[in-house]
């Protein structure tokens, strides 16, 4: 738990509060699986500005990204996408944190944070370009302040720490946020990124979504202690939060962001969630996972509990449900249209995005290649001929 949220600022020595990195991290929770809002002496203040209306919109966002996920999975099964990494079950972790960010913060994510990308305003079609094999990167990172997803496990944490060093040099108060999974914590990159982040006390948030499975390896094989407890070894304060509780995730993220903005350095957040689906559409989790475990986590569903909370508050009206369903339908159909009407990349596209400024050597190559393509006569034929290879 944070000792810093009262706004005193300044770098806290890790563990000096006796709580921040203790071995017995409590699991921060503000909404129970049954949808009961429970108060917390320290963290309530971080979400006290969340109005009923905003709660409804968090509910909407989670529902929409679940729908994006389902639609993209269907598109993969229909041969429209090569692969898709489902986020089913991790909606609260992504929306709760993604919605806590400022526009000038910068996100470095893994491939599963499609819900965070939705929060950042990534175009739905852009979201699918890589998975359709149409581009090596779907969008301009600077247009939404989110890097394109990193496939190399954990490598994005280094990028985030580096970017945060830049923020520090600029004297800005924005924050670099990096998302990664439980498996990534075992990677060298993540450990190096945390060492650097702690050494330089840079404004970076390490957001670890512990979804319990690194493909087929259970998290208990990777760590005999809570992942949040590992941060203490780096001198980084950490929080352990119910990753299926959108308010708790938001509170924790805000605490971490606040510390970073005030020059308090990095924070490690372990959002305890569960990967309800396969690792990717090419994976069969039934081969290594117990169905009972899945059932246990289904009872902790992040959307169901917000729905229940809204119901308790008398906010779950038919109008709201209809509005959310319509929004999800609209997004799903836009996603499908964007995917199936995506133009195939052209041979000459390969020369784009190599240099930010004109390069005569490359232009000469491009010219040669264009003439080579033209030698086939029918340009369209040449395109499809090359496209097949």
């Amino acid at each position, binding site marked *: 738990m944070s000792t810093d949220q009262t706004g005193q600022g300044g770098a806290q020595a890790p563990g000096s509060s006796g709580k921040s990195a203790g071995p017995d991290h409590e699991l921060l929770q503000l909404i129970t699986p049954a949808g009961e809002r429970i108060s917390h002496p320290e963290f309530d203040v971080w979400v006290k500005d969340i109005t009923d209306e905003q709660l409804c919109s968090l509910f909407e966002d989670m529902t929409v990204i679940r729908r994006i996920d*389902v*639609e993209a999975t*269907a598109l*993969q*099964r*229909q*041969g*429209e*996408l*090569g*692969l898709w990494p489902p986020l089913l079950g991790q909606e609260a972790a992504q929306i709760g944190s993604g919605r806590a960010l400022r526009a000038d913060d910068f996100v470095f994510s893994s491939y599963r944070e499609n819900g965070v990308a939705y929060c950042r305003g990534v175009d739905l079609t852009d979201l699918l370009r890589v998975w*359709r*094999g*149409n581009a090596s990167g779907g969008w301009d990172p600077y247009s939404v302040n989110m890097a394109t997803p990193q496939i190399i496990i954990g490598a994005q944490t280094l990028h985030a720490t580096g970017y945060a060093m830049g923020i520090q040099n600029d004297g800005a108060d924005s924050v670099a946020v990096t998302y990664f999974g439980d498996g990534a914590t075992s990677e060298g990159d993540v450990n190096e990124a945390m060492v650097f982040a702690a050494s330089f006390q840079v404004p970076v948030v390490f957001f670890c979504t512990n979804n319990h499975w690194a493909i087929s390896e259970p998290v208990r094989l990777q760590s005999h202690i809570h992942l949040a407890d590992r941060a203490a070894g780096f001198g980084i304060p950490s929080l352990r939060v119910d990753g299926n509780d959108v308010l708790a995730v938001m509170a924790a993220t805000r605490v971490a962001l606040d510390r970073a903005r005030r020059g308090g350095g990095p924070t490690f957040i372990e959002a305890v969630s569960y990967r309800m689906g*396969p690792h990717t*559409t*090419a*994976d*069969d989790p*039934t*081969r290594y996972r117990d169905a009972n475990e899945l059932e246990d986590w289904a009872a902790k569903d992040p959307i169901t509990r917000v729905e229940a909370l809204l119901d308790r508050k008398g906010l779950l009206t038919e109008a709201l449900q209809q509005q959310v369903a319509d929004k999800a339908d609209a997004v799903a159909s836009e996603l*499908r*249209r964007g995917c*199936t*009407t*995506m*133009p*195939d*990349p052209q041979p000459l596209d390969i020369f784009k995005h190599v240099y930010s400024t004109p390069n005569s050597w490359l232009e000469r190559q491009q010219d040669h290649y264009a003439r080579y393509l033209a030698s086939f006569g029918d340009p369209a034929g040449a395109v*499809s*001929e090359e*496209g*097949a290879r």
Partner: protein
Amino acid sequence: MIKEFRLPDLGEGLTESEILSWKVGVGDTVSLNQVIAEVETAKAVVELPSPFAGVVKELHEQPGSVVEVGKPIVSFEIPDDGGAAPSESAGLSSGAGEQAVETPKREPNLVGYGAVVESSGRPTRRPRTFAAADSLETVTAPAAEPKPLETRPAERPRSTPPVRKLAKDLGLDLAQVTGTGPGGLITRDDVHEFAGHAGEAAAPTSAPGGTRAGERETRTPIKGVRKHTAAAMVRSAFTAPHATEFLTIDVTPGIELLDKLRSSREFSGIKLTPLTLAAKAVLIALRRNPALNSRWDEENQEIVTYNYVNLGIAAATPRGLTVPNIKDADALSLPQLAQALTALAETARAGKTTPEDLSGGTISITNIGVFGIDAGTPILNPGEAAILGLGAVRTMPWEYRGEVALRQVLTMSLSFDHRLVDGEQGSRFLADVGAVMAEPGMVLAMV
């Protein structure tokens, strides 16, 4: 408008998948993303959501068939004004229907379908052109490879799904059948007629390469003892909650006793086996544990405890498993019991067991030891409360008087109906049987 759905690469780099089942039939109206089939790839079993909203026009593949990635598996009739995924400009799913019957064109294939498969068979390896390979290969291979591209792919013989199913069941290749229906359609009669001739003329295609003399599988009607056994086992397994316990004991003294008895006058000419000993031990133990010699009477809501024992012995016969029983076995002396066991086995093996021998059993023993097996979880003979599995007697290193010695060791497996028998009673019974077999003198303490 007809739209075809071609099998996508459902994993990463798969070349084929097996259709496990169809969730829709021809004529069904399906909505977008409705699950239409279950498909097994090398990696996972996945559900296929429909890419179109429309009416199922044709299922091109039967459940159980392994389909190459990119092959059409289902056609939909799509309303012209919409319902379809607006994919006209994608160049991916559009025009799939038209292309299917033409010579396959090269097309962009970055998504979902993997590399274009040039031949109809397995993916072929390309010869290495840079190496100074055998000249024969370098000359012929490049010439031979493009061929499949030029020829039209063999058109699927025209027929209907039931007829294809029939042909498949009969192991016939429809391509060899001449269709007499409209437009060369192969009818049911055509298949039957071809099947009639095929018997005389050509060998059925289901025996590839002639490596197998007969059919690839043998179909035996379920009848007789097999049918009876199956019904009895299902009935027993799903009505009586089974619990099974195991006990491994040193039966050296029991075996030594059998040896002694064999040389005695009273037992001359009588076959004495561990089963004889076990049968007697069961009968003695039952007196102290009558719950195991009982029956659950569901209809009258009563528990029937027998004051007699009809001891069933599971017997493997040429006709299958039978469990004849020895009537009033508890009243028999050991020589009588041994003789009854021998007679029962001989009658069973001769196939002369009468229905009366088979009915009225109260508890059973199955002697799996004769097959060299140690233990198992026997299924109760229906209506009985317990069954004892007798394992093989093995010479094993065993604890004997504080040291390891080679002893005659045997494992017993007792299944009982947990409605009638609690763990305590079952355990006491099994322990008693074990005690008698391990130390026959223990009988003195029991009777």
